[in-house]
């Protein structure tokens, strides 16, 4: 641990990684609270993988067709927003096909991503980076992007906290009170999409899904209010990303994978603690 603190003083990349973890935790804690309580982790997973399709397409256009202005981030944002709108429309139209659309988006997104990366010379090895991210490669520009994301999320949640809560808890009742529930739900999906895109850039697809669901579920057992759940899960996520980074540094392991396993461990322990509390 002391070794890690010393290294933190020496290496800017470690400080950046730590900061990136904390900033990502704010976004994933707040948005993840909605994802978990509204039970749409499937949608989050689907959007996260649809993003790969957009990234693959952007990388292919950029490398093979010389669209130099197009970055993978553009492709990711495009795919995530498109995915959110498609799922929002599928829900608004009703019927039982919503989960089919979600699964299809998941599979098609990944397939498109793999296909275009295959067609792009010299990009094969990068798929792992997008799956697991590389938090130790974060530059100051990405940190600013994360800060912007946190700002947007907190602003939207501050303005729409009550209708968002109502739509997540009892959508039918909210609609009867004159809330435009389809619009509010699509807004929520856009927040999820935005969070996923930005976090994928920092921590990778798999860690995004882990951060958005595991710490939130762990603290969910001990939260009485939605905002408490947001605060607690953001705090727990920060602790987890920091611990994951320290552990990975000490043992020379990939930081993303270590953090995910730590999060899963805490999730299981929280479940056990809640079960013991119930029995006591």
């Amino acid at each position, binding site marked *: 641990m002391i070794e890690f603190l010393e290294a933190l003083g020496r290496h800017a990349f470690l400080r950046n990684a730590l900061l990136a973890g904390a900033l990502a935790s704010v976004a994933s804690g707040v948005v993840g609270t909605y994802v978990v309580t509204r039970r749409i982790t499937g949608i989050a997973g689907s959007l996260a993988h649809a993003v790969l399709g957009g990234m693959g397409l952007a990388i292919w256009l950029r490398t093979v067709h010389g669209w130099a202005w197009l970055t993978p981030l553009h492709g990711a944002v495009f795919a995530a927003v498109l995915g959110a709108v498609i799922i929002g429309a599928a829900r608004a139209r009703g019927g039982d096909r919503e989960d089919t659309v979600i699964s299809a988006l998941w599979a098609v997104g990944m397939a498109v991503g793999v296909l275009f990366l295959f067609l792009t010379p010299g990009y094969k090895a990068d798929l792992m980076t997008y799956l697991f991210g590389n938090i130790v490669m974060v530059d100051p520009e990405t940190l600013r992007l994360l800060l912007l994301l946190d700002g947007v999320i907190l602003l939207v949640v501050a303005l729409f906290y009550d209708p968002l809560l109502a739509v997540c808890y009892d959508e039918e009742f909210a609609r009867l009170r004159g809330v435009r529930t389809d619009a509010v739900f699509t807004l929520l999906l856009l927040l999820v999409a935005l969070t996923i895109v930005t976090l994928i850039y920092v921590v990778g697809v798999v860690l995004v899904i882990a951060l958005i669901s595991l710490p939130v579920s762990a603290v969910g057992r001990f939260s009485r*209010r939605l905002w408490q759940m947001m605060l607690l899960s953001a705090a727990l996520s920060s602790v987890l990303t920091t611990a994951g980074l320290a552990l990975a540094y000490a043992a020379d392991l990939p930081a993303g994978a270590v953090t995910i396993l730590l999060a899963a461990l805490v999730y299981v322990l929280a479940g056990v603690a809640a079960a013991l509390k119930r029995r006591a």
Partner: protein
Amino acid sequence: MSAAPVIRVRDLDYAYGRQPALQGVHFDIQALDFVSVIGPNGGGKSTLLKLLLGLLSPRRGTVEVCGGPPSKARLKLGYMPQRVELDPRFPVTVMDVTIMGRLGLRPTLGPYRRRDREAALAALEATGAADLCARPFSELSGGQRQKVLIARALCGDPEILLLDEPTASLDPTVQDDLYALLNRLNDTRTILMVSHDVSMVSRYVNRVLCVNRTCVEHCVTEIPRELSLLFDAREELRLVRHDHDHTDHPPAGGACHD
């Protein structure tokens, strides 16, 4: 009664796919009526409620609420769904749930105002649940939850209360409390309530609609004093005639029959 009805249903048909759920439903509800909607499970009671709320659109016929389409009258309605449809693990307090009834009476952006919190608290006081205000909704007993959901329906100050099985799975003393509460609320509001049991309801309601694909109104008549003595009843007894054949179609118009 000469005043315009607050709810007017004419020749209403509804079907889920090809499965008819309601056929030829036809009735009026006047201001300050206390109506019980009874009928077997799957008979279309909740469907009827959803049509009145504008959550479903009729296949044929018309539904008018307060003189217009239901979707325009929503803020005049206080709706209480069956509580089984709510997620018990959602982190909300009694206040969080109750104050949802104020949505639509406030700007979309920003938090609830003090006015909203006061209205929610007043509604909780009216239903006798004010002391539960800070408790997590999931920790409440069945009766407490019903009271909170009625308070939520009330706090938007609706003209008409639409309640979907407010007394389901409650023990008899709690049911009594709840009916006494609804009876008080009926002084100023029209109430339409879906209910399983005719026996409890008949003491308070002035009209009974029996929904089983079709809709038939039953007369509620007061039993002569001498007869109620035979039942050793402490309170006034009322009789709901329930002598129509459910397999047959009702007479045209579905008016009060016997």
